[in-house]
């Protein structure tokens, strides 16, 4: 019956895989909690320094990214403890989304870095003239 709902791939969640997934979920949750706390503290630091707007954007992006990792941790842990296949699958889907968003931001950072280098080089060459 179960196999009708969840198509099997020939792979199972063995006890070792269960332990590793549970540990990964726990670490993921901790990373999310610590990173969100860090961004809140950084926001407070920026508030003191007077550069609130940029820090607010950075903090909201951090919360947005790490919420997926937190959900991965929670759902995978719940899935393993209650033998809930759907929770496990949703947890893994959240991990996928977390990495996807990370790549998206990496690309943006990469583009900004390249543009910064180009503008710096242009500025330097114009400054010499």
């Amino acid at each position: 019956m179960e196999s009708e709902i969840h198509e099997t791939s020939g792979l199972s969640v063995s006890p070792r895989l269960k332990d590793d997934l549970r540990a990964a979920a726990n670490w993921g949750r901790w990373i999310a909690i610590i990173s969100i706390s860090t961004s809140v503290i950084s926001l407070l630091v920026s508030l003191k320094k007077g550069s609130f707007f940029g820090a607010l954007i950075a903090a909201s992006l951090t919360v947005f990214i790490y919420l997926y990792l937190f959900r991965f941790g929670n759902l995978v842990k719940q899935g393993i403890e209650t033998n809930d296949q759907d929770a496990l699958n949703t947890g893994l889907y959240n991990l996928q989304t977390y990495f996807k968003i990370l790549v998206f931001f990496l690309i943006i950072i990469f583009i900004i870095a390249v543009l910064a280098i180009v503008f710096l080089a242009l500025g330097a060459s114009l400054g010499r003239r």
Partner: protein
Amino acid sequence: MEEQTSSSQDLLVDETACASLKDTTRWSGIISIVLMICMGFIALGLIAFLFLGTNLAPYFNKYGSTNFSGLSSGMVSGMIGMIFFIMLLCVGVITYYLYRFSTQTRKGIDWKDQLVLEKGISSLRIYLAISCVFSIFSLLSAIFKLIKLL
């Protein structure tokens, strides 16, 4: 019959989980390649500091926010070189486990090999554990900044 029921209650790495994991390995693979490129840049920085280090202390004293006036130029270059080396080591370890997670998990799913899949997920666990240690460091640094401001 009982055996069938209990096995149906066991968790599976079903097609949905496989699709998610495979997609995850693709994205994490990209991240690990980007990290490898970053490692290359850090290594270049390390090499640059090894060759130019002794000439950089006056520059840092003039423009840097940290005052190195009490240190000799050799010590400054040594410190900066050490920082680059530690950064390289940290990024290297993280990249290794992320790349291992990416390749092993993909292979495990493609070949339907339970052992390889387990190795991949084990690498994910180690990657997340190391990342957690680094995030603790960044939290501590943020707390120190806040304390300094108060």
